[in-house]
């Protein structure tokens, strides 16, 4: 694989696309991809992510710049602008328990139709969902989520596309990298092939379609 320029990578994402983005309150989010999406003035995106971060950082930049139409996240409590846009009917927000959200993204990438989780049973979350009993215990059927583009940020990438993450910047990234039709990665360092030991690769190369060239 050759690296691609940042602008070319983001140019592939059409308005209205569904994107899933790694990161947890902006830690581990591919910031350069966020900046470029804003610069290219993408519109009507659906965002799947843990949260909407804060104004000015991470996916919060997409909220600020009105790139989004719909977000599927586990909370928006850290971003007043998301709440404002939601109350003003400028975006729609689907709130999903965090453990359910990551399993739904995983199911999408792993070819599963969904999972049965006890989380949300007996709460508002169960509305409209199928409830299934296993051994006398009720579970909600939570269905798979997929996206057109998965945007991830790694600590190390090699030129084949193998990725390794740093500490808590790992979070959603390895799961997100499984579940995009097209996977675009940025990395702190792009290293020669073979430098990341096989046991330390977290996202295997064939998953990654494009590595964005650094600086």
């Amino acid at each position, binding site marked *: 694989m050759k690296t691609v320029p940042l602008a070319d990578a983001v140019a592939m994402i059409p308005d209205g696309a569904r994107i899933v983005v790694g990161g947890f309150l902006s*830690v581990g989010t591919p910031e350069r991809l966020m900046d470029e999406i804003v610069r290219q003035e993408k519109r009507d995106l659906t965002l799947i992510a843990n949260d909407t971060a804060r104004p000015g950082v991470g996916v919060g930049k997409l909220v600020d710049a009105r790139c989004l139409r719909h977000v599927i996240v586990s909370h928006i409590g850290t971003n007043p602008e998301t709440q404002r846009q939601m109350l003003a009917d400028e975006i729609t927000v689907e709130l999903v328990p965090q453990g359910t959200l990551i399993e739904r993204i995983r199911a999408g990438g792993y070819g599963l139709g969904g999972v049965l989780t006890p989380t949300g049973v007996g*709460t508002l979350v169960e509305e409209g969902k199928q409830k299934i009993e296993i051994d006398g215990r009720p579970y909600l059927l939570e269905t798979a989520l997929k996206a057109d583009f998965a945007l991830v940020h790694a600590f190390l990438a090699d030129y084949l596309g193998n990725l390794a993450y740093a500490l808590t910047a790992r979070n959603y990234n390895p799961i997100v990298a499984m579940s995009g039709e097209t996977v675009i990665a940025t990395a702190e360092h792009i290293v020669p092939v073979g430098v990341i030991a096989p046991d330390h690769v977290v996202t295997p190369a064939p998953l990654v379609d494009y590595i964005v060239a650094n600086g």
Partner: protein
Amino acid sequence: MDPQAVIAKRIARELRSGMLVNLGIGIPTLVAGYAPPDVQVYFHSENGLIGTGAIPAEGMAHPTLTDAGGRPVTALPGASTFDSAISFGFMRGGHVDLTVLGGLQVDQSGHLANWMIPGKMVPGMGGAMDLATGAKRVIVAMQHTAKGQSKIVKSCTLPITSARPIDCVVTELAMIAFSNGQAVLTEIAPDVSVDDVIAATEADLVLSHDLHEMMI
């Protein structure tokens, strides 16, 4: 003593060496500061860290080592990091021995409401529902009343976090355990009477056979 300190100190006495513990934001976070020095627990941060240590000394923070609020932390020797699916597998799968959560309301059958106030505050549930549903033991840390109203109610008027009852709630006045749909008063804070607690509580309380003063 500061009400929050009473709550955090009492809950810290529930910590045992080897436990995996997840602390929510707010009062629960304070519990770590009162852990007895001889008790070594693992703190779990839902963003993918076990072995969360103290806030780093100045100049020693790194943007990729953070707690679930995005603040820099340290990693103790033997810490591990992992993806969010594993992190929530720990919660949902019962591998987290204890979680301490904040609360808006707890009702007398042990239901917790802590994630939204319809029409007013809709931040989202984050990890609260998975923790309340899956952790082996759930303790709620909150003040007994808000604006003069009891937060321990007959039946939650706010949307609940889980159908599964919590194990107990600790307030600045009392410790109340939940079992078989009953709220059992097990401990009262120093200088607080049983009548004080009953007066401050909307829920019906059953007095424990072993009711005693809180050691803090």
